[in-house]
């Protein structure tokens, strides 16, 4: 198992190098002189020259890339052009907020998505099934930021039950996490339904039924347990979607997370922060998928990683 983890961590290196190349060239793709863009329109030639030296733009491209890579390895993501704080500090300060939203949202999505998918598969082509499948399709088609705005109108403006935005107690987490979960719950329900439908048609399910086991035991213990692997995969893949959704949800609810940071940085053309946040998002996405791979062993003892 440990060998497998180490092997998987090493297999991440080419992808990370790929990401670093993309991010490195991102700044070079800017129209015009990157030093000029970073320094701003009002900067003096001396300031531009200082930034050019700082960024090493006067050196050959391969040297620039290697030094960029060296800094990345040391988690030195540069300084924010706006606040002059180290980028990594800006990210660390907001990471717990985004993590809280993501974890609650994934938890809610699993809590509602998996049972909905199971019920739908157990009663296929009934009204329950149609409600779940159409509900899931509606969820996938709905813009999260619009749902967020509508939830604010209903629960903050009309009913005055929950705050419209910001941070504080648990009340502040409800609307953003429900908004974020809405998109993911639809995918989980759809995947659970299709996997359960396949599993429920297998021979060992017929055997379990013919043994006289209760339907709940057949569905939960025999079918769902075996259908969990594709479901967990979808949950892992949806984490990426969640990060994208976090950018929009955090904007709707003025939630001080990484998503909000990236939008503010784009609007302020703060490239070091943009690069840093995108790198961290990429890293998180890869790590979550690694965790999902490892979770397979826990779910399915037949899987052995050598």
């Amino acid at each position, binding site marked *: 198992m440990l060998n497998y983890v180490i092997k998987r961590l090493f297999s991440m290196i080419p992808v990370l190098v*790929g990401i670093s190349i993309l991010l490195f060239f991102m700044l070079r793709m800017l*129209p015009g002189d990157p030093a000029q863009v970073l320094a701003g329109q009002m900067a003096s030639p001396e300031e531009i020259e200082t930034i050019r030296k700082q960024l090493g733009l006067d050196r050959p491209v391969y040297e620039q890339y290697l030094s960029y890579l060296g800094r990345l390895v040391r988690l030195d993501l540069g300084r924010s052009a706006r606040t002059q704080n180290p980028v990594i500090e800006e990210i660390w300060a907001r990471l717990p907020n985004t993590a809280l939203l993501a974890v609650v949202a994934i938890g809610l999505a699993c809590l509602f998505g998996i049972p909905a998918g199971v019920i739908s598969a157990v009663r296929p082509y009934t009204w329950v099934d149609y409600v779940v499948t159409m509900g899931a399709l509606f969820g996938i088609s709905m813009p999260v930021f619009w749902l967020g705005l509508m939830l604010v109108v209903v629960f903050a403006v009309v009913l005055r039950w929950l705050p419209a935005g910001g941070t504080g107690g648990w009340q502040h987490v409800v609307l953003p996490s429900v908004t974020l979960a809405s998109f993911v719950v639809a995918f989980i329900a759809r995947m659970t339904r299709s996997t359960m439908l396949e599993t429920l048609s297998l021979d060992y399910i017929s055997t379990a039924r013919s043994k006289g086991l209760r339907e709940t035991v057949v569905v939960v213990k025999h079918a769902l347990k075996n259908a969990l692997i594709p479901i967990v995969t979808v949950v892992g893949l949806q984490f990426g979607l969640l990060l994208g959704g976090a950018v929009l949800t955090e904007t709707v609810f003025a939630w001080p997370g990484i998503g909000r940071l990236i939008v503010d940085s784009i609007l302020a053309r703060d490239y070091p922060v943009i690069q840093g946040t995108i790198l961290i998002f990429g890293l998180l996405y890869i790590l979550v998928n690694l965790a999902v791979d490892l979770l397979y062993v826990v779910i399915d003892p037949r899987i052995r990683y050598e």
Partner: protein
Amino acid sequence: MSEATEPNVCRPAELPSENRWRRFWVKLRRNKAAVAGGILLLLYVFCALLAPVLFRGDPAAPNLILALEPPSFKDLLGTDELGRSILGRVIYGARISLLIAVGVVSVGLLIGVPLGLISGYFGGKVDFLIQRVTDAMLAFPGFLLALALVSVLGVGINNTVISIGISMIPLYIRLVRSCVLTVREEVYVEAARAAGTRDGMILLRHILPNVMVPITVQTSLGMGTAILFAAGLGFLGIGVQPPTPEWGAMLGSARGYLFNAPHVATFPGIAIFLAVLSFNLLGDGLRDALDPRFKI
């Protein structure tokens, strides 16, 4: 919706024939959800094409005296913060959103499909190189990749299309490559190769037609995603810019009026939702109709 976990639509044995297309059409017509999606989509196309007839006047021209009017017989969906008719802007918004959707999938198709064909057909170092770049691009969730590209390219319709289009390229590469890997082993491809047909001709004449089915499904679903992404960028203020009547940008500016005029945020959202729903319903229907395992 199909029972299958994976749409198996790139089966080379199922060659396009008159009979197959007839069966596909019958299956698609019997799928009520897909028909509803198709009708909804036609309505949007109708609005986009006939926008100047359906709404007379300039949807971007402000009229501050009528600002934030609620829905009424005069203005069916009310007016926004600058007194502009929301109905007019929603109708004209269909033009922008459909234009973006077509543009985005065109970028994805024009770059992703050839690269997927080359990667799957030739294999070797070219395949390795293309796949590693694809891996790196897929390491970013689609919307974040589009966001990163917009931050470099800047705002506006063209850059929105290019950014979202680029973020879709790896999906097309992966999809086409996986189908080509199956199709290239078929006897007719081998026969064409033995007869001395050039690789380019084999790819265009024998392989491309057999991967068109998954591409069609992906294109329909991709258009829905493109509208969602574009609206998301518009909402954040880094996509299509006001006063262009883009649904996402309309929602972005409506955020400030949720407490006194919630209708401003309601209708553009419904327009986005129904447009994306129409593409998703149609895409699901196409997949089921084109999947040979899914019976009528």
